[in-house]
């Protein structure tokens, strides 16, 4: 019979491996996500405001507050949304239904797997300081 401390240690190690595995970005998913992001390039960039706001610093940012961007719809400015995996998943699926009045006249990324890849890639690519620099 294994000592109790060994079982606990093995359990902890297994847990850490599991956490590590889930936290590590899936390289293939990121590559697919970058491909999906190409659809956004008419209006968005990671660095620099375009027809739409820049995405650098997106995660954790309150909607309607990208630095230097002043063309937000009233609906977006007043939404009180904060961008994270969950809110992006809802918005990107069907922007005009999720946030009526948004200027993002786009039917949405309907495929759940594509949205997941896109959001995973966005999270990596929009990390300010590490991956990008917001342009005021």
């Amino acid at each position: 019979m294994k000592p109790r401390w060994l079982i606990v240690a093995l359990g902890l190690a297994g847990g850490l491996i599991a956490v590590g595995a889930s936290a590590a970005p899936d390289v293939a998913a990121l590559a697919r996500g970058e491909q999906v992001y190409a659809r956004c390039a008419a209006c968005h960039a990671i660095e620099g405001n375009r027809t739409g706001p820049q995405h650098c610093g997106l995660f954790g940012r309150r909607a309607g507050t990208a630095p230097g961007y002043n063309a937000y719809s009233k609906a977006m400015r007043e939404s009180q949304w904060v961008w994270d995996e969950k809110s992006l998943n809802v918005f990107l699926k069907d922007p005009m239904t999720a946030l009526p009045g948004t200027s993002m006249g786009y039917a949405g990324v309907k495929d759940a797997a594509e949205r997941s890849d896109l959001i995973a890639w966005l999270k990596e690519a929009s990390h300010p300081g590490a991956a990008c620099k917001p342009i005021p």
Partner: protein
Amino acid sequence: MKSTSIYVPSQALFLSRRRAMSTSGAAVLSASAVALLGGHDALAAGAKVSAQELEADVRILNTALGAELEAVAAYQVGAESGLLSKAVLPVAVAFQGHHKEHAAAIASTVQKLGGKPVAAKDKYQFPVEKLKVEADVLRFAAGLERGAISAYLGAVPLFADRALAQVAASILGDEAMHWAVLRQVLGESPVPSAFMS
């Protein structure tokens, strides 16, 4: 493997539809035709398209207009970069001309629908520091065109006024040709897939 079924209309139906479109003059949409067509249904239909739906159509058009004006500015940056060869420069200028036509047609339609067309920005934030050789300029332009295809594709199903959806589809076709040509010049497969998303 994902199975995709596509409805292919019979040749007879296709031909009769083509004749019908030719008769109505809408088979080939010039910039002026686009401006005339866009908004016509909505204005004529009255009860069919609500004021709220019209407002949403105008909002979608204005976002497209902003992107078109940005594309015009981007091609200007490319044309003035001194990086484009003698053979490529006129093509880039021609594509810029198309974007100018799109912008004019959309702005006119927005006005006709009672909206205020967005104006070009005084200054655009383009990654000019990354444009070192001709291929960089072409790749940047190709990225914009690729995005424009998706943007119009994502706008087509949203218009309450179906005539506006036709206008968007017409512009989408032009953007797709730009993208294919730019990819060809870059040595990439000009048409890399059967479907766009």
